[in-house]
């Protein structure tokens, strides 16, 4: 059958080690700088997909959860590091950021999960606006001026600090896709799928839909927060308008949609593809072109491959002559159907 989780994890750790060693061999630290952002989007896309892809609840507030993680790190930095020069290790900051965002995810879920479809999406968007307003007015973490974080130049024995951050984000990305895959193949994953397809029927089949949705918002939020926690150390200067920016919300939706939402592979492929494209565009053209790329790709995929790259491959592999006729007929009956 399918690969067991420890094997899966091991394979990905080996791949990660190879990528890290390869990047080191290239001898240019910019690759870590760019790679960090791509990996961050792997985590964000995977996290979004746990709620959006598995359960079918579209979250427009990814930036809020990401920013919560980032701002918990800033708050701790202001509270501890600036006062007595003790630097809390970044993995600990990631756990704290994850905890804060997870709790907020749970709270948001409890308040909004009785809403469905567009109303839920609007509520998550509202959450992002409310949190941004709070942060802008919270002087302790820099308010609208933003906050500076001074990170060490080097870390032993890896060398440049950016390599360390890259490594941490890679570990988180591996953890993220492992969690997503675990969920997918578990009882929880089947429950999520039943919620996505038909909540009334899910309830009738005995699925405690509200509890499962709360689990999804909590895991999803926590992963986003963990992705955000090291961000102040990466960027050095954290500003509310960019941390709560549209990029995060749009990218974490677009990447799973382009990759395919029904499996862990989708967000991974989508984030690697889109994230790399954006990094290349940033260097060669301009960073302003990023969202344009996302927009265009999204339109193309919604029209040509509504089930993303994974869906495209899946259909191609499973295609039998008689199936194909049937599927074409179904698609003709339901034009523009988005999963």
């Amino acid at each position, binding site marked *: 059958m399918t690969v067991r989780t420890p094997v899966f994890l091991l394979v990905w750790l080996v791949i990660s080690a190879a990528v890290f060693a390869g990047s080191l061999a290239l001898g240019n630290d910019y690759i870590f700088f760019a790679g960090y952002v791509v990996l961050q989007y792997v985590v964000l896309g995977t996290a979004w997909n746990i709620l959006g892809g598995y359960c079918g609840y579209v979250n427009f507030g990814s930036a809020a959860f990401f920013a919560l993680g980032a701002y918990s790190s800033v708050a701790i930095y202001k509270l501890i590091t600036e006062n007595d020069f003790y630097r809390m290790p970044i993995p600990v900051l990631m756990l704290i950021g994850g905890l804060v965002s997870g709790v907020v995810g749970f709270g948001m879920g409890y308040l909004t999960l009785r809403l469905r479809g567009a109303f839920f999406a609007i509520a998550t968007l509202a959450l992002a606006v409310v949190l941004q307003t709070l942060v802008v007015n919270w002087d302790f973490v820099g308010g609208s001026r933003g906050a500076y974080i001074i990170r060490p130049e080097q870390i032993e024995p890896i060398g440049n600090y950016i390599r360390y951050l890259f490594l941490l984000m890679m570990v988180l990305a591996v953890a993220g896709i492992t969690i997503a895959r675990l969920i997918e193949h578990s009882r929880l994953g089947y429950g999520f*799928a*039943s919620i996505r*397809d038909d909540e*009334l029927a899910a309830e009738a089949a005995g699925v405690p839909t509200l509890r499962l949705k709360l689990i999804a918002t909590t895991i999803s939020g926590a992963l986003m927060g963990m992705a955000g926690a090291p961000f102040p150390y990466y960027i050095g200067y954290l500003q509310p308008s960019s941390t709560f920016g549209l990029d995060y919300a749009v990218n974490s939706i677009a990447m799973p949609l382009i990759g395919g939402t029904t499996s862990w592979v989708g967000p991974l492929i989508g984030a690697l593809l889109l994230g790399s494209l954006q990094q290349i565009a940033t260097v060669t053209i301009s960073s302003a072109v990023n969202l344009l790329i996302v927009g265009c790709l999204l339109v193309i995929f919604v029209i040509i491959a509504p089930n993303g790259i994974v869906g495209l491959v899946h259909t191609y592999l499973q295609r039998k002559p008689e199936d194909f006729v049937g599927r074409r007929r179904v698609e003709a009956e339901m034009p523009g159907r988005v999963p």
Partner: protein
Amino acid sequence: MSMAEGASTASTAANSAAARALLQVDNVGKRFGGFVALENISLSVPAGERLGLIGPNGSGKSTLVNCICGTLRNEQGTVHFAGQKLDGLQAHQRTHLGLARSFQLPRPFVSLTLADNIRIPLLYTVARRRGSHHTAHEIEERCAKLLNEVGLGEKARRLPRDLTQVEMRKLELARAMAAEPKLLIADEAMAGLTHSEIEDILSLLVRLNEQGVTIILIEHIMSAVMSFSRRLVVLVSGRKIADGRPEEVMRDPEVERAYLGQ
């Protein structure tokens, strides 16, 4: 004081009635805005019963099912199931207690294969009951067996979109059966089926009933209802107008009036 005593006697009486019957519906009422969908419905279904529930379109049959199963909340009255009061319980909790239903319009899980459609109630309802923990392999077998019973065994790996309407009704029924209910409510499981398919479903329901499952059949196809039911309940405009042996109920002038017009 005497009023409190009276109330407590009444509730004891209700409790003992509920203890005898598997499903005890007392004075259930439901309105949608100004429209009264159900008015003072009382119904007692003993274990092992084969009950037919009929009525013209819009008479409140599905609303009653929705109130019993927790999809809708009734404003008035109470529902007891297996001696337990259902008020305030969510639909999934009622399913866990042993109350299963099929939907009038099939609601399959469209992104899951047929086998996985059946797997959901097995994982979420059957697996949580004491002493019925299945291994992955046993669940696999249960899925195949249930699909075979409704004649969908060969399509276990297909998606619901590959099914005809008739097959979707069978899937709907198989999914309700998978929850291993004490009471199965089949809401128009046979609409659109051919004569031989109706026979298949009927014999399936009779077999389930012989295994001890109480069944409420909601149906428009009178021949099916008459051959299946041992008791018939008729709803008209949200009110119960008849309840009794099928032949007697069908001779009832009020039922004739509702069905044939005056």
